[in-house]
């Protein structure tokens, strides 16, 4: 059994009066194995964000199923969804989404506090993670006092401190400069090697080339997928950009 199973997911948005309906996802099928590092690519409007929202249990598919560890998302009670999300999923966002009213330390603690942990335990969990992410010295600082890369590392710490089954990253490098991007991607690789499953939605070929598998989405369907296999990141980069070119041309042909 795969860690994450997405089966025939379809999402139709209706305008309020039911006049127009837009099909954001047609029929999406894929699995993610434990320990995998998957990137999802696609152009704006391809349905990436809709898919990620469904995987994050923030939105419900019109039809189809999403299973994490064999547990069906649609079977989770409305009131338990947030709890489920907190316990099983970790999030990293393009805009970091750190709360400006908390220090970095408190931002990282937030999911643990919400889960009702004890302060001593939280501290024990944070210390090694902070060391690994290189933010031990920044913990007392506030988001506005640190750089974008540092903010994103704190966000990663917040995402993984709960030991989530899967880490969902939405354009994590979108707001970073190239140096910070490299640092973050190295970090993701390290975390992944340590056993963390990662699913990342991205525009960036460079970011995608570090994943072990890339899914391409177009017009609400998984159009194509590439495995990295034994290829180096540079070779994989080339393959991905070729595919993207192909996709774009294919788009024109239609």
């Amino acid at each position, binding site marked *: 059994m795969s860690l994450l199973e997405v089966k025939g997911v379809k999402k139709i948005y209706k305008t309020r009066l039911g006049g127009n309906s837009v099909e954001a996802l047609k029929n999406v099928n894929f699995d993610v194995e434990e320990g995998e590092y998957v990137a999802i690519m696609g152009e704006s409007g391809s349905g990436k*964000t809709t898919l990620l*929202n469904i995987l*994050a249990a*923030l*939105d419900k598919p019109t039809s189809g199923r999403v299973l994490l560890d064999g547990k069906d998302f649609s079977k989770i009670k409305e*009131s338990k*969804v*947030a*709890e489920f*999300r*907190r*316990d099983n*999923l970790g*999030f990293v*966002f393009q805009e970091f*989404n*750190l*709360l*400006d*009213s*908390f*220090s970095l330390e*408190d931002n990282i*603690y*937030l*999911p643990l*506090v*919400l*889960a*009702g*942990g*004890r*302060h001593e335990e*939280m501290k024990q969990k944070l210390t090694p993670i902070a060391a690994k992410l290189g933010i031990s010295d920044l913990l007392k600082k*506030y988001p*506005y006092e640190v750089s974008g890369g540092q903010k994103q590392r704190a966000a990663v710490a*917040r995402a993984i401190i709960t030991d989530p089954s899967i880490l969902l990253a939405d354009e994590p490098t979108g707001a970073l400069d190239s140096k910070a991007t490299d640092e973050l991607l190295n970090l993701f690789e390290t975390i992944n090697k340590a056993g963390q499953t990662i699913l990342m939605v991205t525009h960036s070929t460079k970011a995608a080339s570090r994943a072990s598998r890339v899914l391409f989405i177009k017009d609400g369907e998984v159009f194509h997928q590439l495995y990295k296999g034994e290829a180096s990141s540079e070779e994989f980069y080339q393959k991905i950009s070729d595919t993207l070119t192909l996709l774009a041309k294919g788009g024109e042909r239609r």
Partner: protein
Amino acid sequence: MKIGFYARLARDGIKKNKKLYLPYLITSALMIAIFYIIFYLSTCASLKYMRGGASLQMIITLGVFVIGVFSALFLFYTNSFLIKRRKKEFGLYNILGMDKHGISKVLFWESIYVYALSMLVGSAGGIMLSKLFEAGLTHMIAGVVDYDFSINFSGIFIAAIAFGCFYLLIFLNAVRQVRFSNVIDLVKSTNVGEKAPKANWVLGIVGLGILGYAYYLAVSIANPISALLYFFVAAIMVIVATYILLIAGSVVFCKLLQKNKNYYYQKSHFVSVSSMMYRMKRNGAGLASICILLTMILVTISSTTCLYIGTESNLKESYPRQIVFETYFNSIDEMYSYIDDNPIVGEVEKICKANGTECKNIMSAVSCVASGSIDSKGVVKIFPTQENESFDRLIYVTFMSLDEYNKSSGKTLELNEGEAYIWSEKSKVDFSEISFLETGDCFKIKGAVDPIEEKNQKALKYMLDDVTLVIDNFSESLKVMEKTKAINPNNDYEMSALQMSWKFGFDTDLNPDEEIGLKNQVYNYLHEECSKEECPVERFTIDAIEEERQDFYGTFAGFFFLGLMLSFVFLIAAVLIIYYKQITEGYEDQPRFVIMQKVGMTKKDIKKSINSQMLTVFYLPLAFAALHMAFAFPMVSKLLMMFGLTDIMLFAITTAATTLVIALIYAVVYKITSSIYYNLVSSVNMD
């Protein structure tokens, strides 16, 4: 054409920001209406020619200024808030090619619209309501209501000029704000990055210190005259301390909570403590303003209501009979020999008969009162030297003979040589003997006795400490007094230091007008009698209660009415601040709650956290205001004594009732505005 364009833009701007402008317009119209009503009442002829109307109108005239100044400040405050929220829109106009001159034109038309609209609605409402208030006030001072409807055009004119000036200033201020900022600032002004607040320990402690001292002042002052002096000092200190404490002190407090890790890192405290810290820093000033306004409302309503309700008993205390006259003498011997065989009582009874009534419920009392200062050991100085005596220790010493006391009280007390009984209406008697510095007389205090009514009115009236000494032989007191006179034959205090008087009062069956007529006849007679060569009466006073009643009611109804009006205005201001605060916070918190939901906060958690945080933030000003009121209570009750109100219980009741009513109103406002906040926060999508 061009002008039409800017005007239309301004109109659309107001319409689009209904949520912000509607409360502003309503407030503005209300302020104008109230301004007009108060002006109308302060000049309206029907009140002017009523008995007591003059005192009433004098007090109300004060209100015109207070309302004017307050309206100006408050409209300014609200408008700066509106401009802050609308800067983005102006920035957009600027980017799209409208120069700042153009924006100023839009602002100008907006001001014109708001001014015209609120002037129209306000003066219409004011004109309609003014008659109602006039009737209410007339009723309060027990006059006859007439139903002629009139419009005070000069009132409208003055309101138009005054508020026109306010709006001109507001407009200029808005232009200044737009002029001195660049486009980027304008566009971004609502989401400027906010720094985490630093705990300012020094300021926090200073605030606490100032508040503590102000409270100490309010509680420790024993004398009404110093209460009056220190009331404003204490009030200003409390205002300053409230601002400091709510802005800096609360951050310090939250930091302390944060330091307690086991408390802070709990689901229910984590979010609320940290966002409260933020809230306080940004909105501490708003909260402090709400708190001050609430305190002013509490003090104003409770005291003026108490005064108004207490008018009748106040009147009765000052004038125990319908007609009271008092004659003053130069020496006790003269006084007693005159009273024993005086022509006055008989003549007054004759006058009454001529008016078809008789003297009933007669009160006749002699008083020998010395004023001076007293120390804690019971040493009285009749002639205090001003440099080293404080107000607190001024005292009225009344002498009463044992015979008189026994006669009045029906008791059969006895005294030995050099002994005295004592009582005091308001002062603590904790000395075992009382001595007179100038004369060397000394009385051992045998014990305290029950007071006899209607004695020592003067001490009550001037709110000084008082003791009454009951002595066996009146010549003892005579000795004291005359010795004192001998020591200071030409002193300036003679009149106030030694007063020997005989007071005579009686009731009649006459109606108020006839009673006043009777009083005038008695006055004429006394005047004639006392100017006779052989009459030892030095001077006299005479009062008819009916004449004073109108003045009392006029004064206290005026206070009451003005108190209600001002409190109403303060309340509107507080509600508006709360409303705008909720809106700002709602907009600010939207993204924050989206993030927290993404991280795994449940809707229930959010509701709970919002609730606890809002409850704290919301009820903090009310709790503070109640605390302020509690500490102001002793001071205000002393001030009320100045107006002759000594019924502390009544004041306690009106204070409690006022606090309850205000808390209820506040709770309703909380319910309404917090639902606005919920809607703002929960309206956003999670994306």
